[in-house]
């Protein structure tokens, strides 16, 4: 018997299949998956909502996967949960993690590339807004991905946390001339030096604080250290290394 759909409704149908070759149980499972569109559904939720036995659900899912009607996607919020989507839908950013994720993993190389380019643009512009950098990056065609304004805002936030740029507010005067008063802007962090001094400053290590430059400041065992204890200044191996000229 053909599995193709017939215009006549008179032909008798096999009791457990529909015109797409799904059994009734598969149809129930597929309907639950399809309803979720691009949000996908966890296999446990399918089992709970369908009231079918676990083995039936598992068999149905396998069959639907084989038929190419559904696909499994990685849920970046919870990678251990098997999540399924109807084949015609693309997974939502909540599932995939958005522009910064590739196959469920953080795309560190891509993120670093975007950060580096944005940082360079900010240095070139001296005082930059999100829009000005976004326009400049898009015009350069450096990235295929369609990055929106919120993506650039996230990147700028990360650059602030890296201490590469600082967030300031425009006062409309001086270097902020042409930028609306109160608009959030970004400036590269670093002293205003020129020529050799600038190169030297750029190459130099970031300033280390007083505490961080001694063994105790970075010791993971400082809370256990006592003057006469097993861990003490006299027995400390970090001190030994530090004073080993």
């Amino acid at each position: 018997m053909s599995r193709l759909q017939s215009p006549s409704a008179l032909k008798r149908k096999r009791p457990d299949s529909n015109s797409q070759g799904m059994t009734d149980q598969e149809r129930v499972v597929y309907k639950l998956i399809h309803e979720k569109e691009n949000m996908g559904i966890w296999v446990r939720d399918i089992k709970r909502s369908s009231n079918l036995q676990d083995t039936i659900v598992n068999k149905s899912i396998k069959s639907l996967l084989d038929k190419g009607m559904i696909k499994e996607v990685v849920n970046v919020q919870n990678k251990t949960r098997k999540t399924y989507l109807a084949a015609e839908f693309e997974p939502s950013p909540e599932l995939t993690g958005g522009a910064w994720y590739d196959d469920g993993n953080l795309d560190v190389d891509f993120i670093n590339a975007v950060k580096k380019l944005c940082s360079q643009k900010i240095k070139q512009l001296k005082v930059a807004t999100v829009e000005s950098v976004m326009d400049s990056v898009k015009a350069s065609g450096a990235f295929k991905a369609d990055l929106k304004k919120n993506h650039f805002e996230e990147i700028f936030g990360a650059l602030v946390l890296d201490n590469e740029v600082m967030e300031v507010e425009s006062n409309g005067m001086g270097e902020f001339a042409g930028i609306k008063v109160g608009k959030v802007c970004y400036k590269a962090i670093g002293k205003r030096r020129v020529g050799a001094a600038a190169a030297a400053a750029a190459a130099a290590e970031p300033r280390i604080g007083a505490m961080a430059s001694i063994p105790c400041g970075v010791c993971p065992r400082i809370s256990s250290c006592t003057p006469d204890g097993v861990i003490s200044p006299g027995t400390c191996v970090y001190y030994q290394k530090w004073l080993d000229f």
Partner: protein
Amino acid sequence: MVSQHGILYAVHLITNQFGNLVAKVCECLLRNGALTLQAIVRRTELSPAKVRNCLLVLIQHNCVQAFILEESVSGEDAGEPGKALTLYIALFVNILHRVRFSKFMDVVSKELGGSCGELFRGLLEHGRLTVKQIVDRAGANAKESTNTVQEDLGKLVMAHYVECCPAPEPLVPPPDADTKKRAKSSKVMVEPLTLEQRVMAVAMPSVMRRFSFVPNADQVADDQQNVNQPPSKDVGEKRKLHDLESDTALEEEVECNWRANFEELLRRLRHKACVDTIKVRFDDAAATVLSAMLEASRAEEDKVKTANSVPLSLNTIYEEVVKNEKNHSMTFDHVRTCLEELSCPPTFVKTDDESYSIDFTKITEAAQSEEIESIVLKRFGETAYKIFRLLFRAGCLMETDKIADRIFVEKKETSKTLFKMWQDGYLLMEKLVVGGTATGPSYGGSSYLLWKVNKRLLRETVLDEMFHAALNLNLRLAHEIDQNKEVLNLPPDKREGPDKQKFDRLRNVRLLIHSSLMKLDEAIMLFHDF
């Protein structure tokens, strides 16, 4: 309240300089607060004579202040009705200052010259001296004439680097009266003063008296009973209230002892730290402008931890900048530009109607923040550094996943780092359970971990670690010297081969540890004194 390692560090400093007995008495006071002589004797199990002598040494060197409480004391120290008890309180801040003498000397010598510096050194070494003692010491050391010495002392007092010592046993009123008086005159909520602050507020003479030096006043003092001498006979004895009134009257007419004014010196070091912070964040020009503002407004500052400097006009600032020959090339517009840059957030300089004032609190907080970030980066790594900066700026609780998204780090690594920082006391953690039943979140509910930086608690944690580190540096140095004492005892011509290597290594060890201690002490001042 002094932290645990703060006490250990202070006791170590006193032990090094004055020995174990004095340190024992000092530790007793640091751990137990203000005590009577009898209470100290009981707790230290030393004889009254020994305790008395130890207290004399500590008072002489401004590490302890005696005082009398107006209200009668109950409990183990109960005295007869109408009798006032003398109590002793350790001055933790002054004990810490003992490692800063070289910095203080530097400040004084640079500003007032070598002879003033030498006179000042004597005051640091001996704690407090009368004019006669100062003159005798100068005469013995450098054959200075009395007039020169008195002139130098006058300069030091005028610059407020030297002050008249506080009253030996001031009467301290009860705390309620003091707090109410301050609250009435202020519309803002008044934080109660610590006992140490209340004692020193009463003990210090008026500003007029404190910085008023009259040459040859010692001749007047010779004719009168000197109640400001270290109380060698009176330590520990109960004083009757009516006796104190006549003592107070005498005090006005009697020559005072002189000592270093740590407040003024601390203020100079605070200014220096502010200028250094600005130099690093901006450039030399901005640091020059800030320095000029500090110089112009210094006279109006009335306390070390003042929040803002007095407002200054652009003209005043420019005039102060170009007073220094090195800055003659700086234009008016350049000064204005520097001020505009300093006024951008985080607003180290506030502007108000064409006048500018320094926001000391912002500069100090920026420097503290930088120091903590440096520790976090080195101790916990880059991920922790980003987490810390995020939470510090947010100032509120944030969920783990949200943190991971903001810093672009995988959730697993973020979680691991958050726990490490929390275990070391750098973060606070709260658990939020959403949904579920009374029996627990596993029945359909979810639990979330929220994280936060508590700035006040964090500063206390870091400060205690700094005291711990300072103590460790000292102990390690002592250990190194002890391990190599044979080499140290060798005459220079006998040091050859391995002995010479050991000696050279020890010299380098000393240099490194001393310079680290100096740098660490600046960080301690940043968190404790500024």
